[in-house]
């Protein structure tokens, strides 16, 4: 008797939970799905279906301003990712290595701060700082800003990877006549590589998607794609936006999924 009650009770809970799961997915992805569907619509108005067409994608390909902002975005993402990956990995290694270091907790907190504080706050801080030191706003300032927030994300991902690494690996390498550099090059780096690549892809994604911070620290002619798109929406919403959004969502998803796949493959 009791066991049947318990069993049916559990099934009901399970059903509610799975329903809730589907609801969450619908809530998150239906709007994106709508955008993707309408990006292939031939109609001139957003939200009316005018039959399947690639006209908005064709128009994108001829939009010079948009292509320029895309180029900017790609350069910013490339440079900021490379630099943030190097520094973020180094920071993760340093924090992992000095386990007995008393102030490590403080350094952890400081490093993770950019992840927690609101983008707007970060944006204002960076803008003030760049103005203070007299750095002209442009592509360089955007790259520096992206490096600043990306280091933390890379460090977090690499730290997670390092936490799983057996510290006797490095001791074994040293015991087998490897210098510290050889130990890093031959043992540590290959073992944390999935974390480093995962962190780099995450950094790339975040850089390509950032609007708030970039819009504060950009200069004339250095607009990135998301900021440009945001500007377009404020003026007039054309179905072209749907096509851009679809491409951006696709690119981001590919990056995020590759990042996850690389991290997961490394764990096995």
């Amino acid at each position, binding site marked *: 008797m009791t066991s049947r009650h318990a069993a049916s009770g559990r099934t009901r809970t399970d059903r509610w939970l799975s329903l809730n799961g589907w609801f969450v997915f619908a809530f998150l992805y239906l709007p994106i799905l709508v955008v993707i569907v309408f990006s292939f619509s031939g109609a001139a108005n957003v939200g009316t279906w005018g039959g399947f067409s690639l006209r908005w994608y064709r128009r994108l390909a001829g939009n010079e301003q948009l292509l320029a902002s895309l180029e900017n975005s790609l350069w910013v993402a490339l440079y900021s990712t490379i630099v943030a990956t190097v520094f973020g990995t180094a920071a993760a290694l340093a924090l992992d290595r000095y386990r007995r270091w008393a102030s490590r907790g403080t350094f952890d907190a400081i490093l993770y701060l950019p992840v927690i504080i609101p983008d707007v706050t970060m944006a204002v801080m960076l803008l003030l700082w760049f103005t203070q030191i007299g750095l002209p706003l442009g592509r360089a300032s955007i790259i520096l800003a992206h490096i600043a927030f990306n280091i933390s994300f890379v460090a977090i991902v690499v730290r997670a990877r390092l936490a799983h690494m*057996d510290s*006797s*690996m490095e*001791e*074994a*390498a*040293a*015991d*087998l*006549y*490897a*210098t510290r550099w*050889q130990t890093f090059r*031959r*043992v540590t780096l*290959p*073992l944390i590589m999935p974390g480093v690549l995962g962190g780099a892809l995450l950094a790339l994604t975040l850089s390509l998607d950032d609007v708030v911070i970039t819009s504060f620290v950009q200069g004339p002619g250095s607009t990135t794609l998301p900021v440009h798109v945001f500007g377009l929406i404020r003026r007039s919403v054309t179905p072209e936006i749907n096509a851009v959004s679809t491409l951006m969502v696709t690119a981001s998803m590919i990056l995020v999924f590759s990042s996850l796949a690389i991290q997961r493959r490394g764990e096995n």
Partner: protein
Amino acid sequence: MTASTAAVGIHGVTKRFGEDVVAVDDIDLEIQDGEFFSLLGPSGCGKTTTLRMIAGLEYPTAGSIRIFGEEMGLRPPNKRPINTVFQSYALFPHMNVEDNIGFGLRMQKVEKAEVSSRVGEAIDLVRLTGLNSRRPGELSGGQQQRVALARALVNRPKVLLLDEPLGALDLKLRQTMQLELKDIQSNVGITFVYVTHDQEEALTMSDRIGVMNHGQLVQVGRSEDIYEFPSNMFVAGFVGEMSFLPGEVVETGSVRLAGGEVVRARTDSSPGTSITLILRPEKLHLYGEVSEVPPGRNVLNGSVSRRTFYGNSLSYEVELGASGSFDVQVENVPSQTRWDVGDKVVIDFHHEAASALAE
């Protein structure tokens, strides 16, 4: 000068972690060339820390460590003529068996042709032939253990350090590997320093054993001496089974137990000293009547208070009244009488089998 000839010379070595933790407390030890030496002790006794200091993975707070007379000081592990087999094996998961074993040689810039021939020899030595291109994750625990051993031995170190290398293996495999390790050691002739908490393992393999407790070396000696003549209560209790009876020395070679019985035993304390009489359970015999005991032996009367069956042997706990109680181990063979709880028995032992330890 023994200091210059010893394979490993440890002199006045102390290791402190922080202010109050003393992991190793002023140790002096010399391990001879070609010796199989075990550091034996319970977890936290400082044996692994001692090994790590020899390897250069930790540095002593005080004292000196010499390898064949050469002071190691603050020399890093990669500059020491020593290799280690780690407890967790620490095999590189991203390299196959061959690359793992050849790692040390490649780091030493040994020629390619020589690397591959020496790696081949090492693989044969540990009987892993044919598994060259496997990754560590595709090997069994025993095979990983062999890779770790080959990876260290291939460098022909002057001293090989082993940190509980058999700890993760099951009993059968552990026993096979014990014999194999001992064989490999006598074949290659390299000094082995072996850390273990397993007294049986230490006794089986070692030429000499150093027993550690609370960071101190409490006894060093040949395996048989450690077992037969423990020099203090800790070693007596830690190595093998042992029964303890309180008493005092009457005269040289004679001891009075708490219940008044006087027995002959090995003594080295002066008359009147309080001692503990130590007895190995397998060196005692049980009889029904005093008349059955061979002449010239120690005889005590008691009664069986517990019987435990072990398969190949039986263990009886025998009560002596005021003198205490001890265990007697009897082989499970047809000629042995089986006793039940409550049976009156006569215990007999040779006076060489009992030692009086001063507290």
